[in-house]
């Protein structure tokens, strides 16, 4: 290798290495920060301290940690299951049973993906008020269940579902819902896994809508709890760090065990 190519090579590694380091640094900062007192964190201390237990105890007391964690988990898991069920059935239906009327509705559905949430939030708040659902977890979940994006994702995936399987099942006398439940769902396991990761992450991290619709502390999610801890006049950053880690662990865990599906799910939207 010539010296100039060697220098280019070194430059590439230095650049990528630096960028990778910067990408990971806030994670390290969070882990180190959990062990330090606020006074040290605001002065930029980046060595492990001995305040972890104190911070963890304060987080559990100040933020009612088990409750807010449970609230987040409940909303994210139930919301994801409902979204996958309703939106995958619809995506399958739009692709298999085509008609001009349904194609038009599908077109409208795709347009809703581009609509900013700010447009929906006032009417949604009023609707939830009329339904008597303000300050309930159902109100958080309901508007996310029929997702234009997830319907689109499943319709695209259904195009790859072999029609021979459907024909064979019909000959065997299966009804349409049986074909969906007993043949489509098991065949499309990896599609479901990929969609699960994406929808779960979105639901777990949701902030604006829960902020509006959940009003008492016993209903709040962990994201809301962290936001209010950190917006105090003198935030206790040691406590905030513990909260940040607890809020990140589930998504980090899902990411590491399902990395392939994660990337697949993301890319599914451009194919």
């Amino acid at each position, binding site marked *: 290798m010539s010296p100039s190519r060697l220098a280019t090579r070194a430059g590439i590694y230095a650049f990528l290495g630096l960028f990778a380091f910067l990408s990971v640094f806030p994670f390290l900062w969070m882990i180190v920060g959990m062990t330090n007192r606020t006074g040290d964190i605001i002065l930029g201390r980046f060595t492990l301290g001995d305040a972890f237990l104190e911070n963890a105890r304060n987080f559990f007391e100040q933020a009612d940690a088990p409750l807010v964690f449970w609230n987040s988990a409940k909303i994210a898991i139930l919301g994801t299951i409902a979204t996958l069920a309703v939106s995958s059935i619809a995506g399958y239906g739009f692709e298999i049973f085509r008609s001009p009327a349904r194609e038009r509705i599908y077109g409208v559905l795709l347009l809703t993906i581009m609509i900013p949430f700010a447009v929906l939030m006032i009417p949604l708040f009023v609707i939830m008020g009329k339904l008597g659902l303000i300050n309930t977890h159902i109100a958080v979940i309901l508007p996310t269940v029929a997702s234009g994006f997830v319907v689109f994702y499943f319709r695209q995936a259904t195009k790859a579902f072999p029609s021979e399987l459907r024909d064979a099942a019909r000959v065997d006398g299966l009804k349409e819902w049986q074909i969906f439940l007993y043949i489509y769902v098991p065949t499309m396991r990896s599609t479901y896994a990929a969609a699960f990761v994406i929808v779960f992450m979105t639901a777990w991290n949701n902030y*604006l809508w829960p902020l509006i619709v959940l009003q008492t502390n016993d209903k709040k999610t962990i994201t809301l709890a962290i936001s209010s801890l950190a917006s105090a006049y003198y935030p206790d950053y040691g406590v905030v760090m513990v909260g940040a880690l607890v809020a990140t662990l589930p*998504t980090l865990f899902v990411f590491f065990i399902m990395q392939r599906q994660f990337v697949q799910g993301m890319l599914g939207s451009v194919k």
Partner: protein
Amino acid sequence: MSPRPGLRRYYDINGWSFVGPAVALILLFMAYPIVWSLWMSFQQGRGMRLSFAGFGNIIRLTQDPVFQLALGNTVLFFVVQVPIMLTLALFIAVLLDDPHLKFRGLLRTLIFLPCVMSLVVYSVLFKSMFLLDGIVNQTLLALAIVSEPIPWMSDPFWARVLLITAITWRWTGYNMIFYLAALQNIDKSIYEASRIDGVPSYARFFRLTVPMLKPVILFTTVTSTIGTLQLFDEARNIVASDTSAGTAGPGDSVLTLSVYIYNLTFRFMPNFGYAATVSYVIVVLVALLAFVQFYVARERDR
């Protein structure tokens, strides 16, 4: 081929029962709110006691300095941040696409990792890192990049720089994954042929890589545009702001349209009509920019 009437009935019964639940939910929680919001934007009043105001709200937009500040901030974040981030993402993707590169998988995973963090959590972490005596200023001072600490939290200019840096940190890896996937689908023999023909590497990048990635670049541009125009979580959490007064950053320097709508609706005297008007400004911006981006992408086809 025209389907037999019986078959059509079969398709309709099954079709509607499969798509029915999703369509009903979309109608109630999407279509109805979209139309209602549009209707509200022509009304004025407190809370739900509204009366028709014609274009009153639109006229008010032109006389509202806070709205204009929020609009300016939002457009600024979009214009500065999206190009920086996408260029960086494309550059990194091209470097990572080299099969001879060592630690490729590791580097890719590390650069993608910010995506698992929630927007609120990373905002809060950035806030703790960019305090006046915090780790970032300490490092910049130690490396002699700056001679005095940067007032990230109290100076409007630096607060905006902080916000743009943070969003770029969170989303560069995300966009990089799309580019990497597209690069892997490109037939490598094209590169081989151009190298033999003596085409320099920068020309290969601009004449071959960029045109072939055009659909993905368009997709990431449109999604990033929509995301940036809706900016809320970061603007509300990243700079030490007085949340009780509803301001965002020093001198409202990171106030975005979404934060302003939230303030109008749930913080100040609730004014649903005017808030709805401001929300439709975002819709118009999204539609306009998406149209421009599709148009630009289409024209280069010839």
